[in-house]
């Protein structure tokens, strides 16, 4: 190649680089993925490569491995269906906006809305935010109410927000506030709760929290309460997954929902429990992953066997 031998060394170097990149783009960027796609046209692989889509009576209702919502237009659970886990993908199970909530283990103080009546609007505008703790407490209370069990959890108020106090006052030598001048329940907003979950703490009356109050100056203390360490509402029912598209729930959460689903469909709970067992997968080889129930598969199974007449 006469041009290259005459060009300066650094030009030759970059010409080789450009050519190498183009060759590699053709091989690994076009031929390789297309060949993989071609092999995946084989029967057995094809349906999976397409997304494991599920069709009922000619209508594609979803993917076997992507979760979906089983709620009505207002976002309330449809009682004849098993409910999926909470989701942070868009407004819930949106494959075009996947991901997690990303709040940390000590995210326990809410950012309160200016007008409690317009909380949803404020949250959408990023002007208010429920802490992860309050999200967990709120979900637990709601699931408990829906399924008719105790929705209480450690560090949650009976009202379903994080039980967290701000102790405002002088700090002692170790940095703690032992003699607070004020005690505020930071996640219980005045006007929403009639009275805080504790009447007094360290000899002081516990106040409700107001919009704009700077309670982070105080010592932030979560209050454990006397809820059982293993609550009736399972862990997966009150937490969102990493993808926001989790197609599964735990067998425990499925069993919790069985009586309500049975009532809605007018069938014995035993029949629903049997359907759960039939749609439950154990650990792969006995030790990989966790036991789980595919929610879409289970709901389709129930629709087929015990159609809902609502």
């Amino acid at each position, binding site marked *: 190649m006469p041009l290259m031998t005459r060009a300066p060394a650094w030009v030759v170097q970059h010409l080789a680089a450009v050519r190498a990149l183009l060759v590699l783009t053709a091989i690994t960027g076009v031929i390789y993925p297309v060949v993989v796609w071609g092999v995946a046209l084989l029967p057995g692989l094809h349906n999976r490569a397409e997304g494991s889509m599920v069709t009922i009576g000619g209508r594609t209702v979803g993917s076997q491995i992507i979760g979906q919502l089983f709620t009505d237009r207002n976002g309330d659970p449809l009682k004849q269906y098993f409910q999926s886990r909470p989701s942070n993908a868009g407004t819930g199970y*949106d494959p075009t906006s996947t991901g997690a909530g990303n709040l940390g283990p000590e995210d326990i103080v809410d950012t309160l809305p200016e007008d409690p009546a317009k909380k949803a609007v404020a949250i959408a505008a990023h002007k208010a935010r429920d802490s992860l703790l309050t999200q967990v407490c709120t979900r637990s209370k709601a699931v408990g109410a829906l399924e008719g069990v105790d929705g209480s959890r450690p560090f949650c108020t009976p009202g379903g927000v994080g039980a967290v106090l701000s102790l405002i006052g002088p700090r002692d030598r170790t940095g703690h506030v032992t003699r607070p001048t004020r005690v505020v329940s930071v996640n219980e907003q005045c006007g929403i709760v009639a009275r805080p979950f504790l009447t007094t703490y360290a000899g002081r009356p516990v106040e409700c929290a107001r919009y704009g109050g700077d309670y982070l100056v105080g010592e932030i203390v979560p209050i454990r309460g006397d809820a059982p360490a293993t609550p009736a509402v399972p862990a997966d029912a009150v937490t969102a997954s990493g993808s926001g598209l989790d197609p599964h729930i735990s067998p425990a959460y499925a069993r919790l929902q069985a009586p309500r689903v049975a009532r809605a469909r007018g069938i014995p709970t035993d029949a629903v429990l049997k359907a759960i067992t039939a749609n439950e997968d154990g650990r792969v080889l006995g030790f990989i992953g*966790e036991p789980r129930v595919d929610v879409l598969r289970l709901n389709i199974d129930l629709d087929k066997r015990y159609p809902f007449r609502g």
Partner: protein
Amino acid sequence: MSTTTAAILFTGSLVIALAVAYRPLGDYMYRVYTGTGQSRAERGVYRLIGIRPDAQQTWSAYARSVLAFSVVSVLFLYGFQRLQEHLPLSLGFGPVVPHQAWNTAISFVTNTNWQSYSGESTMGHLVQMAGLAVQNFASAAVGMAVAIALVRGFARRKTEHLGNFWVDLIRGILRILLPLAFVGALALIAGGAVQNFHDPYPLQTLAGARQVMTGGPVASQEVIKQLGTNGGGFYNANSAHPFENPTPWTNWLQIFLMLVISVSLPRTFGRMVGSDRQGYAIVSVMATLAIVSLTLITVFQMSHHGTVPTAVGAAAEGVETRFGVPNSATFAGATTLSSTGAADSAHDSYTSLGGMIGMFNMMLGEVAPGGTGSGLYGMLVLAMITVFVAGLMVGRTPEYLGKKIGSREIKFAASYFLITPICVLVGTAVAMAGDWGRRGMLNTGPHGLSEVLYAFTSASNNNGSAFGGLRANTPFYDTALGLAMAIGRFLPMILILALAGSLARQGRIPVSEGTLPTYRPQFVGMVVGVAVILVALTFLPALALGPLAEGIR
């Protein structure tokens, strides 16, 4: 079976599988990089590139080739993203904004795969497969090439020649990465990973709502994302997404893939320097650090301490039901130890101490086992520093594998280990100094600092995982993290190649009474100690303000 027993078997089976792969894959890679023959396809490729495969390069020519290829790759990838709306399979997405396109181009060329974008709403299929995924192959092969050049420096005597970068690059891709990726991609599809070219399309769910389903050539990209320790997900949710990582066993396979090359390279190294036990010593250091780290992160996650995990009753936030907490912890440990940066769960929501282990793994300098190639060269530099420290303590001549570790060599080695801490600590400090950085934090208090510290640690060490709450798509973070990635990748590489050149020029010192044996358990223990002490001294103050402040009450 109890959850604990299953967790132990899960990690144990991975260790066994990697031990089984160590010799055959290591030997195979040895033959790839030392063989002299070219296949017909390779000869064709060399002709297209316009290089002579038998031409040897000096260390500086080798380094210039690495840099030339990387610069061209960055420019190409940047242009690709900026022009995607004019290309097919763009899914209707517009051009990626300049600061994000720069960040992403640097990110994929440096084998970091930090993502300030969300795949499903930013990148068309063509950019993903013919832009980003190409760098998944190329950046991995570049890392391996540089590692092999360093090993040649140890193995060769009185020469300026370190091999030929273009040959090492092409062989790494055509003979190692591509065949393994092809088989792995089909395995992932068998598990449920998708491989199609669909635009997003709407469907009506069982409950009658609208859900927009996404497609893409995912499996072919997913497998090289792990095998090449890249980590950049096709979708925002990365390996938590059921289309990327559909089942518990694909989760196991993905962890295996992200570790297998880096774990087997010490075998290649041992063969090349003519002593298998030197390879065993290096892999033992990697294994010791990795097993301790994996145990700790799993224990922290399973014991779920902290306010929210206690309220929940498990560290289940951000974790997929099919994987569960222990297997997700193993994935998180492996991805941070191996410089991969893929995630099958949300690290930001991990327990304070569990999340800290992820950070600590990266702070080790990605050596246990580290990225493809970069893990091996990082570990060899650690071994040299250990030899030097041991020499100072007992008055022995510092030498390693028959090469004298003189002042020139130790300067290269020490500089190597200063670069990433400087990037991490200076970057974090600059971010925390002003609103430009603090505004990006999702969490408040110590956890907010952890998000920023994690980001700079991840970028500088070319890992790519994140505490995902950080809003990183801002001009500040895209630029600063892009710089951290570029400096953290290429300065160490240049130092490694300079070091290789300096070692290759030396002759070979015969083993004497004064030689420290570098294949005994004693030496393995010393390297482990040096690695941990280096990190502890450098990063403990920063960790104390972030995860330790949050986790220890």
